[in-house]
């Protein structure tokens, strides 16, 4: 009895699926989905090699400091870094006084829920990076987690920063209506090809590095990408440093346990 019900139920579900499949196949043939400009021209991130890559990766603190400088002088005009606090910068190799001086340059608004007052105070090491007021076009995302929140991570940021170009003529040939809208900029690494952010790194020497590194656009893009990898995952180096001993121990324990298992079963066929 139950099997009759089961076969009927089976016929019901399979018939409904065939119906959907048939309709879908029919419309796929008669009305095939058109290729979009994004599908044709969107590019995967370029290769970017950072010191933090791989299972042995560790941060290059000098590069992170340079990246932080790029963030401060270029990105921070529009992009916040809300999850990061100034005291975290000590991990980049700054000492207490330097961190204090960096924090003191910022005005941190504090809302008093009792009085409804918003007062600003000079940034302290314990403060998080303050929110950024932005009035222009688009919505600049918070950058704290951006390398974890985008496919490609640091390589994506690097590609985006160095990927601005003129809209290819070929694109307009295929999609005459897809001209870059006013105020947007063509960037094949951006998800829909047209990004509101104007090219932020415009020329060599835009910042002056303290350590003498030549501030080419490529170098600045690399440095700030490395910095944003750190902001998204500050514990990365510790993860790797903890991970290896843990895996080593587990390997040792697994081998021992396997030998014990072989011992115990030595006289039992199974």
């Amino acid at each position, binding site marked *: 009895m139950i099997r009759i019900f089961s076969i009927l139920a089976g016929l019901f579900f399979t018939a409904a699926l065939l119906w959907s499949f048939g309709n879908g196949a029919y419309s796929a043939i008669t009305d095939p989905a058109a290729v979009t400009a994004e599908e044709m021209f969107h590019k995967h991130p370029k290769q970017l090699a950072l010191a933090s890559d791989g299972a042995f990766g560790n941060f290059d603190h000098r590069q992170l400091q340079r990246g932080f400088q790029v963030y401060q002088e270029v990105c921070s005009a529009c992009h916040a870094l809300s999850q990061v606090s100034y005291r975290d910068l000590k991990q980049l190799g700054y000492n207490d006084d330097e961190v204090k001086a960096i924090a003191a340059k910022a005005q941190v608004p504090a809302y008093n829920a009792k009085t409804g007052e918003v007062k600003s105070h000079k940034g302290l090491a314990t403060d998080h990076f303050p929110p950024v007021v932005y009035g222009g076009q688009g919505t600049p995302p918070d950058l704290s987690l951006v390398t974890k929140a985008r496919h490609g991570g640091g390589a994506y940021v690097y590609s985006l920063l160095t990927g601005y170009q003129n809209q290819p003529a070929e694109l307009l040939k295929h999609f005459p209506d897809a001209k870059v809208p006013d105020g947007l900029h063509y960037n094949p690494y951006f998800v829909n090809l047209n990004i509101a952010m104007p090219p932020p790194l415009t020329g060599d020497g835009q910042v002056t590095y303290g350590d003498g590194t030549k501030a080419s656009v490529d170098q600045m893009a690399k440095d700030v990408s490395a910095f944003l990898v750190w902001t998204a995952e500050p514990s990365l180096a510790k993860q790797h440093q903890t991970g290896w001993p843990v895996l080593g121990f587990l390997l040792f324990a697994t081998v*021992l346990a396997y030998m*014990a298992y072989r011992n115990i079963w*030595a006289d039992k066929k199974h």
Partner: protein
Amino acid sequence: MAQDAGLATPEMDAGDGVRRRDFINIAAVAAAGVGGLATLVPLISQMAPSADVLAESSTEVDISAIKPGQAIKAMYRKQPLFIRNLTPAEIAAANKVDVGSLRDPQTLDERTKEGKTNWLITLGVCTHLGCVPLGAGEGEVKGEFGGYFCPCHGSQYDTAARIRKGPAPKNLEVPEYVFNSDTIVKIG
């Protein structure tokens, strides 16, 4: 499971083989035990103060606006902190006391920094049961000895914040602090 002590099976042959086999079994169990203990480290230390809490373990306070005879309450490690600018009369009153007669013998000099005897910096936490004593705020009762008075159980502190009367066992605690400058003091 007493009769199962050791993992040896009856079929095992005697001699060195048994000892080597036993050794591996014991080593495997010991390794599992060590691993288990090691995992306790993160599980226990996660409850210790986190980095953001530790970062607030020191506070800088601007004392330039405190006139002699006045005191302010500041927040230090999520607890009240009393910073008091003693008047010469209060200093004299504190120094007049016979230290030997005190419950917790300390001189005012021991409780302040050299050359800054007028700055009395203490936690605002009664050493009895942790209430906040009165006396730092404008117009608050200062108690019989002109220092602080704890309303919970009636502990009285003098102008050097030493316990003089009532149930509290100790003087108000003086935290570690340094004068960064004449007007900025860093506590903790």
